[in-house]
């Protein structure tokens, strides 16, 4: 597994999105377009992120990609 693909997996584990809002400029862009700063996805529902993490722990995907909470371990 490439480090870049591990990196995408870590974003999914941490936020529920493989491509999350990770900079305020994206919130600003949404607001410029008349949208709420955060979409009605996992980004607006912390409980939903927990559900995603629950699934990932159950399947062992976190171990498969060598994810360690709080550590950026994509650089093998």
């Amino acid at each position, binding site marked *: 597994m490439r480090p870049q693909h591990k990196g995408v997996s870590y974003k999914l584990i941490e936020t529920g999105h*493989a491509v999350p*809002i990770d900079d305020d400029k994206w919130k600003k862009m949404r607001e410029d377009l008349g949208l709420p700063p955060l979409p009605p*996805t996992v980004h607006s529902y912390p409980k939903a*992120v927990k559900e995603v993490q629950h699934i990932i722990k159950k399947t062992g995907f976190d171990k498969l990609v060598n994810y360690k909470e709080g550590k950026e371990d994509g650089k093998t």
Partner: protein
Amino acid sequence: MVKHRYSFFLGCVIPNRLPQIEAATRLVVPKLDIELVEMKGASCCPAPGVIKSFDIDTWLALTARNIALSEENGLDILVLCNGCYGTLIAGVAGLKDPDTRKRVNKILKGTGHQVKGTITAKHLVEVLYMDVGKEAIEETVVNPIDARFAIHVGCHLLKPADIRPWGFVEDFMLVDELVELVGGTTVDYKLKDMCCGAGGGLRSAELEVSNDMVREKIEAMQRAKVDALVNVCNFCHLQFDVGQMQLNNQYGTDYQVPVLYYTQLLGLAQGFTPKQMGLDKHYISTKPFLEKIGMSV
């Protein structure tokens, strides 16, 4: 009463990188008698190229959770991204098998969701072409767009064909027809059916190879003298828009083919302004195209 109702699956790239496509779609579809119902707390589809390639159960359980959210809405899903569509429709097909559903529901236990296999996922093209219909779309056009367009359909919209609604994959002209409905001329070009180069984890891991595919397709479009490219997948959209900019920065080229998602084009034809369609948010300027059709951002 609204004629068509769907759960609106946003995915990742649209809300978090290309919200102009979300904004345009939310403005355009009510004119087609479509109501979009939110899928509160939906996650990544998850991405077929990266997640499915590494672990089928994780991929299937996460997509099952998204499908369950739409089942809780009691609605089929409308999806704008080819990759998300590929994941969701494969999930729908796989979860028809009772043993698979039982296995996945064991994984979902503790999330508060269970999947039943009662709904399906439809790509925007299917909703427009098969549910809404060409006549109803044409009726909303107040400002025909007279320009030459290259159509890029994308891979996951068509294949695997056995779990797609089209019945064919060669010479797929439905998107061309949708563009012609708003007054556009679609132009044949070499490599029209070739992948954009974004999916399958290619863009994230092999950017140079990925952007070389953009170069090949964009040069073919330029030779065909198109005014803009129209796509029906946000990841293809990002690939062409950002890819041209990256190529120009890296190699000093001057690729300038404006990139529009179909709902942005339809919105212009329905009388919305370029700004409402987010055409000022693109990496490759849409100005030359807008000038050609007598508009400005």
